């Protein structure tokens, strides 16, 4: 059964593909070979007009999403930048074509910021293409996409992990101080969920931005939507040690503003 091949086989396959793709022969993949959808065509025109969109090889960017997600309402999505992209990307868009709100996040990076990995969790409403589109500092647009089989992620009821105080922030730094995991306590109601007790629709209420400031200006600025999972999570990995301190600012759709500071090390918690 296909389902049984995740995750070990998928990971082995990805590792194998990474090895194979390191071979010198450049892969010439045209945009035409990537999946298209009406929604994507519309968004592409709106965001990038007639700009040519290159398809990323592994030396630029990989997109890791389990094809059979373990949780449609919180599907892990990882961007892995290669040597051709690190320090050159100024903006990244993450799109789930068939979601009611296809744009998950628009992430702006400060010039020269050596982001190597970016991880978040997304809602996947039905079988869909998922895309990451990067814009480099010299104006190139580069895309990578994949296909995800899942359904119900936008209308899924709140999980057992729901609750707590909206806006609570947890910051966890990697041992080598090259990565920071930002966890935000928030229901991130999509507007497509039904309260099982009352039968009423739950109105949208979501985190609209997660910004990592350093030295008083944004280092990483993620503008987010209802397509982020409940308790949104953003993990940023650098090719070198993160600068510190980092101040994390979070805003939500009800004009809530929350912040926390990371000064290095492991767990840091802020209300």
């Amino acid at each position, binding site marked *: 059964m296909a389902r049984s091949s995740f995750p070990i086989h998928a990971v082995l396959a990805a590792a194998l593909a990474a090895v194979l793709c390191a071979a010198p022969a450049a892969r010439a993949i045209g945009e035409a070979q990537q999946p298209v959808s009406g929604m994507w065509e519309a968004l592409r025109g709106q965001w990038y007009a007639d700009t040519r969109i290159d398809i990323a090889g592994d030396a630029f960017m990989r997109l890791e999403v389990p094809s059979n997600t*373990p949780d449609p309402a919180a599907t892990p999505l990882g961007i892995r930048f290669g040597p051709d992209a690190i320090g050159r990307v100024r903006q990244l868009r993450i799109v789930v074509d068939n979601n009611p709100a296809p744009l998950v996040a628009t992430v702006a990076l400060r010039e020269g910021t050596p982001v190597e990995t970016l991880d978040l969790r997304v809602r996947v409403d039905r079988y869909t293409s998922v895309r990451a589109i990067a814009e480099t500092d010299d104006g190139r647009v580069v895309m990578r996409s994949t296909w995800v089989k899942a359904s119900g992620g936008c209308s899924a009821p709140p999980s*057992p*992990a729901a609750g*707590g105080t909206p806006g609570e922030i947890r910051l966890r730094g*990697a041992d080598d101080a090259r990565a920071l995991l930002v966890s935000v*306590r928030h229901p991130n109601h999509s507007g497509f969920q039904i309260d099982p007790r009352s039968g009423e629709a739950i109105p949208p209420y979501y985190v609209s931005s997660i910004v990592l400031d350093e030295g008083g200006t944004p280092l990483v600025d993620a503008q987010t939507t209802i397509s982020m999972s409940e*308790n949104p999570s953003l993990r940023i990995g650098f090719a070198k040690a993160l600068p510190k301190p980092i101040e994390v600012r979070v805003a939500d759709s009800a004009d809530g503003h929350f912040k926390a500071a990371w000064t290095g090390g492991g*767990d840091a918690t802020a209300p």
Partner: protein
Amino acid sequence: MLPGTRFRIALAAIAFFMSANSFASSHAPLEVDELAPGVFVHVGAHKALDAQGHDDIANLGFVVGTRCVAVIDTGGSVRTGRALLAAVRVRTALPVCHVISTHGHVDHVLGNAAFRGDGTAFTGHANLAASLERSRELFARDYADDLEPAGDASAIVAPTNAVTGTQQLDLGGRTLTLRAWPLSHTDADLSVFDDASGTLWTGDLLFRERLPAIEGSATGWLAVDSELARLPGVRHVVPGHGAITADLAGALTRQDAYLRTLVDDIRAALKRGDAMQDVIVKAGHAQRRDWQLWDETHPRNVARVYQALEWE
């Protein structure tokens, strides 16, 4: 006006022969073993939720008193429920006074509709009603062929008797003690203990052979397990999935080894700030060879536990 006892026996006898006839033709009785006098168990197969035969994967059964019968879980389709009812009718003509659901998962509750009728109470944890409401749409869509009529969400039976704390059911000559547990396998887990035989039905608070699925809380489940291990007078244990055993402590120890490994690995990964995707690949794998249906269940368990422990 209450009918007399002899009249009721006559009615039951008529019902028995009528139902025995009709079920003999269309519903072969489910195979059950008599674990102890009046205690009947059907052991389900270890199959994935989308496999052929997925509607017969949970352990089901019934307990017969001198007055009436209590059915404990009914399987993953109305079909399976009817086959279970046929098995009841092979053994007794007494009415089914209680259908007890150990929790709200599809493989345990879809057969309930086969037992709808006068005087049958549908009993579960106080959270069961909300649990079924949350799942109703999903069950009707993803398990349409297991309902009658196909895809009919109204074939998912809402409970009529909610248990908070403990509740006793008198079947005549024996008493079942129901106990509602806090967040563990799900948020609506109920155990059943038959005092006459010393049989404990754990529902999915205990998995054997098949990897436990964590819908509620791994840490909550570990706490519940330590309480289950202290229950007195248990001579037979019917797990939600897997073989019947007399060794409750041993079975719980094995289950706890998985839950504990998962919790420890994920806590360590969170402390390092690892992303969920990497944790799904790495956490808990020391336990892999001890369990069936790992790939179908483990990644989701990690995702659930990671998202819960992120906030402990």
